[in-house]
């Protein structure tokens, strides 16, 4: 079995020894290996080979299963990672949208006062101004001045309350 790699032992030994010693060393190796060739080791039994082949087939099946599970696990991890990225991106976008929503909310609170309400408020204020003017006009001839003044104050308070209620 030796020399099958076709190494020239003599050349190899000559790198370390002088040519005479190299030749002798190569011969030592060849002759000693001759004993190994002449006394071959026993071979494996057929039953052992059959058993090994069966064991190898099982191991191959096991390896296939392991590879399949590993592939599935990698796919699941990839899917989980994709979901995490998606959720975090969505969360980030939601965070960015939140102040806009607040702004929209505050804007919409301003919009509670629509045109009809403003018209009503303006009318009520004008009414109060008219009443105030009438009081000034009747200042000398009308004895109910105090009562009317109180009513006017109540009206103004009511308008004020309505204003803050929206």
């Amino acid at each position, binding site marked *: 079995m*030796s020399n099958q790699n076709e190494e020239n032992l003599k050349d*190899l030994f000559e790198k370390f020894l002088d040519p005479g010693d190299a030749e002798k060393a190569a011969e030592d190796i060849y002759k000693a290996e001759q004993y190994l060739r002449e006394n071959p*080791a*026993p071979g494996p039994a057929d039953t052992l080979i059959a*058993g*090994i*082949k069966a064991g*190898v087939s099982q*191991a191959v099946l096991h390896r296939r299963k392991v590879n399949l599970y590993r592939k599935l696990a990698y796919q699941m991890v990839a899917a989980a990672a994709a979901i995490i990225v998606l959720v975090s991106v969505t969360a980030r976008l939601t965070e960015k949208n939140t102040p806009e929503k607040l702004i929209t909310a505050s804007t919409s609170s301003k919009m509670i006062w629509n045109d009809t309400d403003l018209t009503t408020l303006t009318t009520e204020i004008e009414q109060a101004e008219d009443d105030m003017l009438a009081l000034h006009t009747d200042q000398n001839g009308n004895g109910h001045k105090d009562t009317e003044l109180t009513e006017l104050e109540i009206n103004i308070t009511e308008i004020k309350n309505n204003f803050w209620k929206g």
Partner: protein
Amino acid sequence: MSKSDDLARIIIGCKNGDSECFSQLVDVYAGRCYGYFYRLTGNKEISDDLLSELFVKMVEKIGSQKGGSFEGWLFKTASNIFYDYLRDKQRQKKLFEIKGNQSELKSTKTERLEDEKIDKLQVQLKKLDMDTKELIMLRFYSGLSFKEMADMRSEPIGTTLSKLHRGLKKLRELMEQ
């Protein structure tokens, strides 16, 4: 198709998980690997176990064989398995010594002597140190070049050459006694 092309095709098949290719690989290498284990252990049962372990490990690790010599990779694995076995045996020996249980050791020795009677070479091999014996068997059964063996053993090629020469010279002397 040449022999090396055939081997390359079988190895590719093995890497793809083809059971038939693994069977072919067992046919190609079982004899050589068994001889390697048998000459190192001198015991058929142990060699059977180590050979089975080698091929199961081969299925598990074939993916790690990337280029280079397949024989180099296979016999490196075989060598690791053998040294693992030796370490395990050493641990068991210590355990028995601690427990004072010598009966197990005696039976192992008897088994070994029975095997040793099979051929003179095996008896003489026992007289060599384990490292030298392993190197001789690696050279003989793997067919690796000295360069590959030196790389596998992480030592200079001159050291490998010198160790092998010394070991084989000693073996020759023992066989000629």
